């Protein structure tokens, strides 16, 4: 049995006197679907930024498959299989969906270094990109420039870009942010359908989606991990209820959507 796919040890980050991450220790076993929840400003996105190297931690270490990656630049972490998506679409507006994903595939296969051969010498890369788009039902619009795609399709393209890098650990920052309920179900179904080899951590505010798709839940508050456990444990945890609903004890049903914590 091998160790966790991703682990952090004593991860800490401050902006001036504001501590945004305090001594964060998490361990994600291989293939598990983790939800990361917590009120706004809890440090969820900061944690993703720290893990992926977009931010440098003040102290602490990050391990991918048991290897210390704390000193690696973001792109090398991606090359090793630690990949993220963004809460706000961060795409290539004038590239078509197919071009965007082909680009990501070429970066993985190192074809992107080749400037003396034309793209049509790389049918394997193009086909891979197309297959990823087809799996996310984007094949019909794959020749459209990204900026012309519907918002929900752009959210899927975010995930397609991440998949093109062949992630081992996938960090999804509010994948369904701004997507209507019916579509967000579809989007999460696509995430749930990912290979069980991939470890997934997603930030999500919609508790129904969290309880439906997560096998484990991490709750963050004030830059700290408050509790961690199976969804039904989290749903009945008094600390979590206090954070989300104030001090007054209120009945929490498993499928209730917690209001007032939207983005």
């Amino acid at each position, binding site marked *: 049995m091998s160790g966790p796919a991703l682990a952090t040890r004593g991860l800490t980050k401050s902006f001036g006197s504001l501590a945004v991450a305090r001594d964060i220790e998490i361990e994600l076993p291989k293939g598990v679907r983790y939800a990361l929840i917590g009120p706004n400003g809890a440090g969820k996105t900061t944690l993703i930024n720290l893990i992926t190297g977009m931010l440098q931690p003040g102290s602490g270490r990050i391990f991918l498959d048991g290897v210390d990656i704390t000193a690696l630049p973001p*792109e090398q972490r991606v*090359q090793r299989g630690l990949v993220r998506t963004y809460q706000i679409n961060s795409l290539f507006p004038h590239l078509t969906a*197919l071009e965007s994903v082909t680009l990501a595939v070429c970066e993985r296969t190192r074809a*992107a270094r080749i400037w*003396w051969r034309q793209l049509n010498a790389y049918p394997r890369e193009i086909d891979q990109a197309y297959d990823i788009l087809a799996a996310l039902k984007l094949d019909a619009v794959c020749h459209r420039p990204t900026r012309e795609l519907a918002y929900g399709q752009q959210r899927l393209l975010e995930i397609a*870009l991440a998949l093109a890098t062949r992630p081992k650990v996938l960090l999804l920052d509010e994948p369904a942010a701004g997507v209507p309920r019916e579509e967000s179900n579809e989007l999460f179904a696509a995430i749930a359908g990912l290979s069980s080899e991939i470890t997934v951590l997603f930030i999500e505010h919609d508790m129904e989606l969290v309880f439906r798709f997560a096998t484990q839940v991490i709750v963050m508050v004030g830059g700290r991990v408050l509790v961690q456990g199976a969804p039904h444990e989290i749903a009945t945890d008094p600390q979590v209820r206090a954070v989300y609903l104030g001090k007054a004890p209120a009945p929490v049903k498993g499928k209730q959507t917690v209001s007032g914590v939207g983005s």
Partner: protein
Amino acid sequence: MALAEKVTSPRLFLQAQTRWRPAEIVFWLATLSPYVLFPNYLSLASQIAIAGLFALSLDLILGYAGIVSLGHAAFFGVGAYTAGLLSKYGWGEPLTGLAAAAFAAGIVGYATSFVICRFRHLALIMLTLGFGLLLAELANTLGWLTGGMDGLQGIHTWKLLGIFRFDLYGRTAYAYALAVLFVLFLFARRLIHSPFGLSLRGIRENFVRMPAIGAPSRAHIRTIYTIAAALAGVAGALLAQTTETVSLDSLGFERSAEVVVMVVLGGTGRLYGGLVGAAIYMIARDQFSGIVPQYWYFWIGILLVAVVMFLPNGILGGLAKLSRWSRS
């Protein structure tokens, strides 16, 4: 795009993008017209071809990778002085002179690219400007080598391929400059349709996203900056060889600014933009400076303002829009 609807196979679609369009063939045939239509303007035509190559090299970094440079003439100048000095000190063979110039400018480009790739936007503009000024002053200080203010004299370019003498009318010069431009254009065209070219467009479109798909953007930028520098060096060498002189302004600020204007006029990120921009700029300069020598920049200024205001994607961008509009 009509094309996208018709072609369903992803491979075919990408292949279709690299296919030669009729307008391109017309364009290159038109470049031969000066021999028939304007035989008295062949030296202007070769200046245009050289400026076009220089603009093409800038478009690779400005239009494709989004690197705004105000010091691109540094590489043009290095190329010009390399070819000029080689010739002055006994080796006037043109093609090897070009290769030497490309190599020298490429080395300088590669060396500076390590700094360039760490910066974006305003800092980048200031850095390239600074490098350009440094090199111009260096050339000025090394007067014993470069001829300083008087320019580099005593250049003699040998016959092209040992056969064609560079004549007074510029017949050989234009054929030479045009052939070099065409070959390097093919090279650039291939490059932008390569996987690497796609990565450059990614860098231009969303620099911040690139690391998140595992792209070593800095390495990509170093590569294209070096290539663009080498191409600019070839353009400089062409000027040195065809005019048999090199002056300090070959690496001055004005030349750096001029080439940005050419690319913006024609349209960035479309390969032909620099070529069209160079032609319009050089012809406008030739015509306007004939009419009102003191004020010709005034007209260039008006042209630039008009293009940027009404054709934000340059003249070619405007034409592309027009053709889309007329088809629909």
